[in-house]
């Protein structure tokens, strides 16, 4: 029972896992092309 509960918690955590943010634009482009995915870029400023 405890094990099942623990697994449930783990799965819930996995479902809420953070978005994987790509660091390099060339890599992002290569991945998007290979995996047939859109690229989303969020430009922010920290000043």
């Amino acid at each position, binding site marked *: 029972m405890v094990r099942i509960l623990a697994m449930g918690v783990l799965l819930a955590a996995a479902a809420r896992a953070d978005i994987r943010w790509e660091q390099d634009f060339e890599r992002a482009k290569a991945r998007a092309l290979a995996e047939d995915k859109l*690229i989303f870029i969020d430009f922010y400023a*920290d000043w």
Partner: protein
Amino acid sequence: METDTFPRRGVQEWLDGLVCMKVNAGGENGHPLATKFKVDGFPTLVLLDPMGKVLHNMAGAPPGEHFVASFAVERYNKAVESYNLRDAKGAAPDLFFVRKWFPGTDLGKRAEEICGLLEKEEGFREAYAAAGKAHADALAEARKAKEEAERKEEERRAKVKALRTEADELYKKYLRTKAFDLYRRILAEYPDTPEAEWAESVLKKHKQKLRK
């Protein structure tokens, strides 16, 4: 964005299916990219298709619940307009777009419903399949172009490496004039390679020796 939009379930599920980047426009790495996309307000959100074509480039983030829909709404509205004009064929590319890139979202589901309604209209199936094929073809072409560019770059690297080996050997054999000609050629024809950097350093050393 970080706290009110991205963690929302629908937003996160949609972003999970994308390649995502967060770029500090003022940072050393981010600045050239911000310039490329003419970013001048924050946040600016850019959406590209897998071939690198800009689909959206907008300053300001729509409120959390409208976030995902804001990227799809234009094409969705176009599809609805065609639908209202009983133009099933015209609606097909827009419906394909919304279903392809926004599956499981509110507008994606609605686009699916409209497809169901248009299924039996003349030419709809063909037009929808053609939109899918156009995308697949563009994707295949871009992949091929990338492979070709990579192959050419590899060839170029191999060639400049061979030239450097040849030049170094000439230099060791005291065939200096021939060696320097080759180094100059490397510098002129293959700039921005490690070999060009090496050629430049050898030529520089030689000049300094001559001065002495």
